[in-house]
């Protein structure tokens, strides 16, 4: 039965429908138009906890707005980007199969630069003001690029190191100290192979700590002397690699494989982009219970992740409504709950009522695996134009041995 209904819906979708007009300035018209739409949200599906959270969102928007939210689980955000590109290449302007994408950084820059995004809309979301963009400029900035309302903030990430306290007494607290630590513990640390997202982030983190011209990293790369700025990084990596896992001759494919290696005991120090991830993995039997996490003393890279709507999305009103719900105190609090996902909120606590604030009270399970709340400055992401040259230079030096 259900399948027949689905087929019918496909057939109906093919018919020229009376367009559900809406005005971004009139939010009720958006939720009206959203009613009954099926929103296809393309989001990385590699984490069961994230998937479960998205399922919860789907239930909520079904109840509240009569929207059918379908989580399209992609192994890589690029799969969704590929589809948008292919559709646009074929002249599909308003029947796109992707309604909402979870993304940030390079993917956003690429889509926006190629005019593949719908917008601006984010700042018209009723809940956007709860992020207090005046005090928190990072919700309007994606890897230094102004978002200009083409994507709405969803959560926060920050580089967090974690180690097995049963094997490591004193983990390194800075990038230079990491080299000494690796020399003392050969084969027990590594980083994902760039251009894997987390691997490139490690390069940027190390570069920020080592270079003599950190300011240059916040300008487009062609305005800087790339070699001069990055030379300290290559010297550092040349020294570090012999002491890495497999002597730096091969690298894990990404954060998940690195966590797997930690779980197997092959590594004793690793890092992640989600501060709560190690604690969550302990609860999930993936990491030893003795796992501890921390930030580096001089701060670690942090960024905000977003949701965006492709310019040819078929169900824009529905996507807008979902994006607004994602920013609601309730959805953000549920997301931050360590038992659910543990992804840090983008809302500003000052803007919330006391009862709303209470929803964000923290969970005590596996709390000792969490990084300390107070410490750790967040370093801003460099300009995205640095990513490609950094990855290329890395590939040139270490990619083919």
């Amino acid at each position: 039965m259900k399948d027949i209904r689905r087929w019918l819906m496909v057939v109906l979708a093919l018919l020229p429908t009376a367009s559900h007009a809406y005005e971004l300035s009139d939010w009720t018209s958006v939720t009206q138009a959203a009613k009954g739409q099926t929103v296809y949200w393309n989001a990385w599906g590699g984490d069961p906890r994230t998937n479960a959270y998205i399922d919860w969102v789907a239930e909520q928007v079904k109840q509240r707005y009569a929207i059918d939210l379908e989580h399209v689980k992609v192994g890589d955000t690029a799969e969704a980007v590929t589809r948008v590109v292919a559709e646009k290449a074929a002249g599909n302007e308003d029947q796109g199969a992707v309604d909402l994408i979870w993304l940030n950084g390079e993917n956003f820059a690429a889509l926006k630069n190629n005019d593949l995004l719908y917008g601006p809309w984010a700042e018209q979301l009723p809940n956007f003001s709860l992020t207090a963009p005046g005090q928190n400029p990072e919700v309007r900035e994606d890897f230094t690029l102004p978002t200009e309302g083409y994507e709405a903030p969803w959560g926060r990430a920050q580089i967090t190191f974690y180690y097995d306290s049963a094997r490591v007494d004193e983990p390194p607290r800075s990038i230079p100290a990491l080299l000494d630590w690796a020399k003392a513990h050969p084969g027990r640390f590594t980083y994902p192979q760039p251009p894997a997202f987390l691997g490139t982030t490690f390069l940027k983190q190390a570069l920020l700590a080592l270079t003599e011209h950190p300011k240059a990293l916040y300008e487009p790369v062609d305005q800087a002397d790339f070699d001069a700025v990055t030379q300290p990084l290559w010297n550092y990596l040349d020294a570090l690699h012999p002491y890495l896992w497999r002597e730096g001759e091969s690298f894990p494919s990404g954060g998940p494989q690195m966590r797997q290696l930690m779980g197997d005991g092959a590594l004793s120090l690793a890092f992640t982009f989600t501060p709560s991830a190690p604690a969550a993995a302990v609860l999930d039997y993936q990491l030893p219970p003795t796992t501890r996490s921390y930030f580096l003393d001089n701060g670690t890279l942090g960024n905000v992740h977003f949701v965006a709507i492709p310019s040819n999305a078929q169900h824009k009103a529905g996507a807008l409504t979902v994006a607004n719900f994602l920013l609601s105190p309730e959805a953000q609090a549920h997301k931050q709950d360590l038992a659910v996902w543990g992804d840090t909120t983008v809302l500003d606590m000052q803007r919330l009522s006391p009862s709303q604030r209470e929803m964000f009270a923290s969970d005590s399970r596996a709390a000792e695996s969490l990084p300390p709340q107070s410490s750790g400055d967040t370093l801003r992401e460099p300009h995205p134009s640095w990513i490609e040259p950094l990855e290329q230079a890395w590939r040139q030096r270490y990619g083919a041995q």
Partner: protein
Amino acid sequence: MSTAVAYRLVVGVLPWLTIALLSVPVVAGVLGALAPAFGWLPVLGGERLTLVPWRQLFAVPGLVDMARLSLVTGLASAALSLGLVVLFLGSFLHTPLYRRVQRWLSPLLAVPHAAAAIGLAFLLAPSGWVARGLSPWVTGWQYPPDFAFPGDAWGLSLILGLVIKEVPFLLLMSLAALVQCQARERLTVARTLGYRPLTAFLKGVMPGLYPLLRLPLYAVVAFATSTVDVAMILGPTTPPPLAVSVVGWLNDPALSMRFMASAGAMLQLLLTLTALLIWWTLERLVARVSRGWCRDGRRQCGDRWLAGIAWLAMRTVLGLMMAALAGLALWSVAGYWPFPAFLPWPPTAHNWLNAADDLVAPVWQTLGVALAATLVSVVLVLGALEAETQRRRPMRPWAQLILYLPLLVPSVAFLFGLVMMQAQVGVRPGLGAVIIGHAVFVLPYVFLSLAESHRRLDPRWSQQARSLGAGPWRVFWHVRLPLLLTPVLTAAAVGFAVSVGQYLPTILLGAGRVVTVTTEAVSLASGGDRRLTAIYALLQLLLPAIGFMLAMLVPRYVFRRRRDLLPGTD
């Protein structure tokens, strides 16, 4: 219109439909990737033809190594698999061991490549099962040592992973071929002339057998030189084989990389063609060199030694596969399972229970898509084969080649183009598109498994039925199809298994809206939790295994009073 004319019409049209189904997507897909390789993709600002993508491609550090790695691992694994299969068949054909192995073939074939690779990786990694079994009492390791396997720079682990999957495939393909080339009769003659078993096989049967294995072997070479999933799990990374890099470039957030990625996909196509050319040349060489040897009249060639090697190697291959699967099964019930614990203790159902809710929808969709794609393929293949019988001549070589097209052209080379074409002609992503996409890959395998049995069907049965006044439909439904029931069901089971294992066509043509156990498995595998990966891998294996079981049991039930229609124990 009389039914006979209708029959003729249907049988006349189906082969053309088959050819269209196989060639249109592949050709359109390749063309779709060809244009961006020369800079043409207006939506990304590519509005004139240029060689820049190729220049960028050739400037990629380690490109030569990538290409060499793909070529060497592909050719080596195909050669090793062929060698092993030939030695094994030669030494053990018609023995109890052979029959035992034969029984395991289909289920082994059902193991998806990625699942086999993950299992093998867990088995042999420094923190893997073998190391756990020996630690710390033999090795003294409290923590996993740091050696580079799998993922060694030589690609040995990749070759091993490919061999354990290719051997069952080639064995299955040779089952039909052995009958067709009258291996039994040839062997009997050779043995009466005093040839030892293996020598008799190599000198007497191989010259007839090899031509029948040629196309399946080409498919193996093509797959092995262009595999992405197995190479990602077992292959080296600095640099990786070419196909892995191409997928990486295609997935690069910088959209300008797409041009170079398309050039890379074209290079992959050329590389696979080169590998096939090399194989073909070697084939010629071996044929020429061995001609004298075949006729020198010597009755033995180290038979016992080679039989021993074949026995050991086959045991190793099958044993590795079983152990890999056992490791996966354990992970699916593991809690925290640290090194060097040999077993996960205490086992827990927690992982299965947690996953159970999310399993229902994918399982149904997998079944639906696989059954539909298999049905389409079986109908088309039967139509093509019936047409062949009617015209009383075998398929032309070019038509044979088209059958293999989807297996010979690396999927990275045509799938992106295919998505563009899908959008271009306005096919909605969803179940329909996915089913057609699957059929493209399922059909060749169904054809491979069914063709020989169909061609061997004694024409006198239908002649007799006709002379008794039955029309062509009746002959088909009541005589030919029942006679072919077992092979048709086996072919359907193979096709079903192939469909269950498809990842890229499902995700690309369905825009991710069609969720199968394989798409779930791959996206969850990107999260790196072995427990979940194991659960989905086991499901990926269970569904086809059920298919194979049905293919075995249904004829037994249907023919419970016609025992001679059941497959013999050959």
